[in-house]
């Protein structure tokens, strides 16, 4: 050995493992890597690392379990462990409960943070003192210098997906070759030149910080991603590359299941989303550029779109968001007391899409025609501009397959029960709600209810205080 401390990095994400390589090898550490808890324990017993960087969530066990097993073994009990996770609260608890955990880092982390924490852990290892170090608060860690890699480097399968992004309706574009940086990473990720380049890029970045970016991606984007993954995972079961995508030149011996590709991309995107949720804003990409995490995420999203398009053109899955549970269109006056509840329904993260129209109700018929909602929720007074447009919607082909709920303002409920309800009954409205504290919950429950479980409309005599659909 050349006297360099030997570190064991444990993370099931190849992205993080490569990030650790890029940080620790230039910093003078020997790095061994493990992807599972079992592998980590075996390696720790095998070569007694100076410290372990351990991911909190592993495929086979939790990081705390790995720590306990290490602590229970006299050979590994003295190895200091630094936990890495995006789950701040849980990791803090583990830090307090488990003896051999000397520190923790919450994702996203900077190179400086990890080197600093590791140096402290190695020092404790040398001194034979396993006392708790000073954890790095997440607020400090979530600085600009976050380290992450583009998911496209993951493997050849990911390279297949790293095509020029196209929207769902676009024609297929030619495949992009693996970048030079990908090739370098694959050839020798630990090469000193790579590390130097990484350092150079970090220096450049300090001189020229990237431009300001938007915040984390919105809920709708995540919901759309999850829907698409579900579509792909289900629709592509048993479909192989050569069946779907002969234009990419996939030969039989290189063929991989599209389900595999989707699963990998799903995992990569899951990590990206996780990082986004934890507040990360930037990622170090495989081509050496530092890009906003949003941008990287959207690239991945477009790859999914593209894959979906290819799969759909091959007939493997229907075009569009086939697994979409429904489209909800809400219409309510902006100054209405119902608006807050309607807004909450519209913002609710779910497998259905929502659109809210709060003024200029003349747009409703055309929006209905284009949007093709499965559910329509309207503030109802039995008259006025909104009601007029509802009548126009009734003439649309969508009306027959549309579930319609009317929501009454509280002050108009009594009047509505006497005046509006008979009219509502004749208008094909499926459910009637009134304003109240549970309105949002009731509406969400009504949307979720299967289409077949239609409840009768409230009669004129019945109270209209509950969801009837």
């Amino acid at each position: 050995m050349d006297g360099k401390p030997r570190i064991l990095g444990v993370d099931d994400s190849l992205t993080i493992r490569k990030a650790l390589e890029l940080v620790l090898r230039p910093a003078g550490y020997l790095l061994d890597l493990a992807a599972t808890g079992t592998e980590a324990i075996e390696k720790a017993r095998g070569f007694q690392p100076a410290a372990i960087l351990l991911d909190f969530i592993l495929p086979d066990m939790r990081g705390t379990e790995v720590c306990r097993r290490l602590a229970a073994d006299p050979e590994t009990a003295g190895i200091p462990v630094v936990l890495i996770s995006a789950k701040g609260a849980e990791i803090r608890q583990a830090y307090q409960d488990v003896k051999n955990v000397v520190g923790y880092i919450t994702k996203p982390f900077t190179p400086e943070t990890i080197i600093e924490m590791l140096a402290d852990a190695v020092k404790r290892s040398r001194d034979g003192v396993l006392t708790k170090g000073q954890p790095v608060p997440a607020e400090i860690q979530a600085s600009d210098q976050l380290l992450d890699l583009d998911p496209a480097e993951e493997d050849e399968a990911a390279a297949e997906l790293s095509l020029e992004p196209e929207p769902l309706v676009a024609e297929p574009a030619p495949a992009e070759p693996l970048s030079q940086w990908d090739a370098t990473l694959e050839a020798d990720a630990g090469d000193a030149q790579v590390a130097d380049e990484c350092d150079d890029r970090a220096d450049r970045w300090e001189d020229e910080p990237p431009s300001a970016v938007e915040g984390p991606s919105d809920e709708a984007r995540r919901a759309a991603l999850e829907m698409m993954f579900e579509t792909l995972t289900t629709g592509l079961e048993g479909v192989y590359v050569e069946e779907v995508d002969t234009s990419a030149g996939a030969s039989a011996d290189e063929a991989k299941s599209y389900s595999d590709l989707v699963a990998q991309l799903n995992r990569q995107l899951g990590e990206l989303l996780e990082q986004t949720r934890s507040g990360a804003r930037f990622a170090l990409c495989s081509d050496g550029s530092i890009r906003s995490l949003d941008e990287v995420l959207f690239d991945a999203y477009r790859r999914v779109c593209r894959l979906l398009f290819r799969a759909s053109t091959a007939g493997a899955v229907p075009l569009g968001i086939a697994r979409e549970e429904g489209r909800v269109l809400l219409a309510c006056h902006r100054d209405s007391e119902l608006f807050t509840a309607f807004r909450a329904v519209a913002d609710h993260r779910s497998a259905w899409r929502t659109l809210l129209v709060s003024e200029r109700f003349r747009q409703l018929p055309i929006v209905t025609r284009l949007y093709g909602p499965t559910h329509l929720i309207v503030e109802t007074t039995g008259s006025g501009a909104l009601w007029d447009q509802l009548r126009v919607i009734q003439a649309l082909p969508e009306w027959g397959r549309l579930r319609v709920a009317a929501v009454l303002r509280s002050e108009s409920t009594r009047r509505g029960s006497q005046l509006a309800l008979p009219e509502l009954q004749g208008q094909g409205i499926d459910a009637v709600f009134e304003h109240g504290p549970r309105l949002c919950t009731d509406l969400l429950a009504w949307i979720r209810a299967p289409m077949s479980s239609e409840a009768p409309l409230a009669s004129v005599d019945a109270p209209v205080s509950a969801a009837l659909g």
Partner: protein
Amino acid sequence: MERRDATTAGRSGASRVLVFAVDDVFFSLQLDWVEAVCPRAAVALREVKVAGRPQRFFVYRGEPAFPVELRTVFDVPSGGRRVERGAYLIVRSGSYLLALQIDACVGVQEIDLSSTVPIPSKLVGDGGVPVGHLVEAGEEILVVLDPHRLAGGVARDHLALALRAAKEFQEREQAIEELWTAICSAPSVSDVRKYARLCRRNGHGKMARAARVILKHMTDCTAETVSANGGGGGAADQMLIGTLVRFACARRTGEIAIEAGGADVGRVVLASGQVLAASCGGATGRDALVRLLALPETRPHIIEGSSETGCEVIADSAIAFLIDALASGAGERRFRRGE
């Protein structure tokens, strides 16, 4: 709706779109596809028959543009009324120019779909491809249209026929212009016949009918000798026109006195086919001639040997003037009766 300064366009990832309103829906089209926005009042609509159905169009920079009502495209009922909107937005859709009827232009805006998820429309065009995408822009819903999906296969077939018909229409218009120039300088029976036919085909009914009336008299001229006193027979209403046409065709010079109800109501002076002067009551010149043509039961008398010189020429071609006067309404009552 948030609007950004158009000068900031061109940043990577953002796309400049023209936002416009139709029935309170905010639509948008990528600016590259937008040719122009024309106020409705500034547009001269034409009509051709395509497969037995009338198809309106207007000419934009020499190319036919076909009005499109988005409500109709999306099959949204308009309550049985014909929708007339404030302007036409001319957009290129494949080989055709479509003139979308719009209520108003909202402005040019940049959209960047990396910050929002476009929802493909359930309404699809050929191949099941959405006709557009819905995007939430703040509190508003923006429909990003794909101009190439607006017309489906059947509509494009119709447009192909309409385009051909419109181009033929334009060619006929060109021919009508040329023929009119010829009629104004040296009228011939064949030119007036072609003119009447082309006017009829292009929907200029009044001009076509007027030309046919004059053509009938011109044809009669070839078979008859102009009598000393109007001659030629025919209905009383037609006598003045017939006399003028005969004079013009024979390129004679002379004066025609017109009587109505036994009284002298006016005079017309011709010289070698040109109309030199006219008088009717207190009116003179073109107005007088128009009034004379509008009078019922007139009886013209040729005053032999009479001529005037040095007068201002009212019309280089009496034939062209008569067609124009008959079609413009002064002679409408007369020529209807005459037909």
